């Protein structure tokens, strides 16, 4: 996430909002936001973080997680969100997606930034993703 914030600062400021959805309670989301903010401030102090570009949402009953088909019902912790990343246009249409194999498998920050920049500019994003079929 910190790496994508760096790309956001380079390419996307003011053009892209970043939303995260999890079953995690608000206090866990605040810890994550504090951790990412601290990492960015220590590593890239020149990046303005006010307002911070990341907004975390809580979905304790997995209402939205189930509605979009990203629920992992078999996890030891209960129903959780599978790690899926979307880029969505202002009309609410999915324009780009990365379905991860695991929590450690996330799109590269550069690829995600390229897709978001294209969509924010009204262009079609690159659909092919290296290493993904």
């Amino acid at each position, binding site marked *: 996430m910190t790496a994508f914030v760096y790309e956001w600062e380079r390419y996307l400021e003011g053009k892209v909002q970043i939303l995260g959805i999890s079953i995690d309670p608000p206090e866990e989301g605040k810890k994550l936001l504090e951790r990412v903010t601290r990492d960015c401030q220590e590593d890239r102090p020149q990046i303005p973080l006010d307002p911070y570009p990341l907004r975390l949402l809580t979905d304790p009953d997995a209402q939205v997680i189930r509605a979009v*088909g990203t629920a992992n019902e078999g996890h030891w912790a209960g129903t959780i969100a599978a790690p899926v990343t979307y880029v969505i246009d202002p009309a609410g249409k999915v324009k780009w997606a990365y379905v991860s194999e695991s929590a450690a498998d996330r799109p590269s920050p550069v690829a995600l930034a390229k897709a978001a920049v294209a969509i924010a500019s009204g262009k079609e994003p690159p659909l092919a993703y290296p290493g993904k079929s």
Partner: protein
Amino acid sequence: MAKLAIGDLFPSAALNDIDGVAVQFPAVFTHAPATVLFFYRGRW
């Protein structure tokens, strides 16, 4: 249920952010020319 795919419209829904502020879908997507939306647990 199949995952939301490219070309699909995000469903109508309402959630709160970690500060308790209500967020309406899909209206929230009108706030920027593009929205990166990721699902996670614990950390990115």
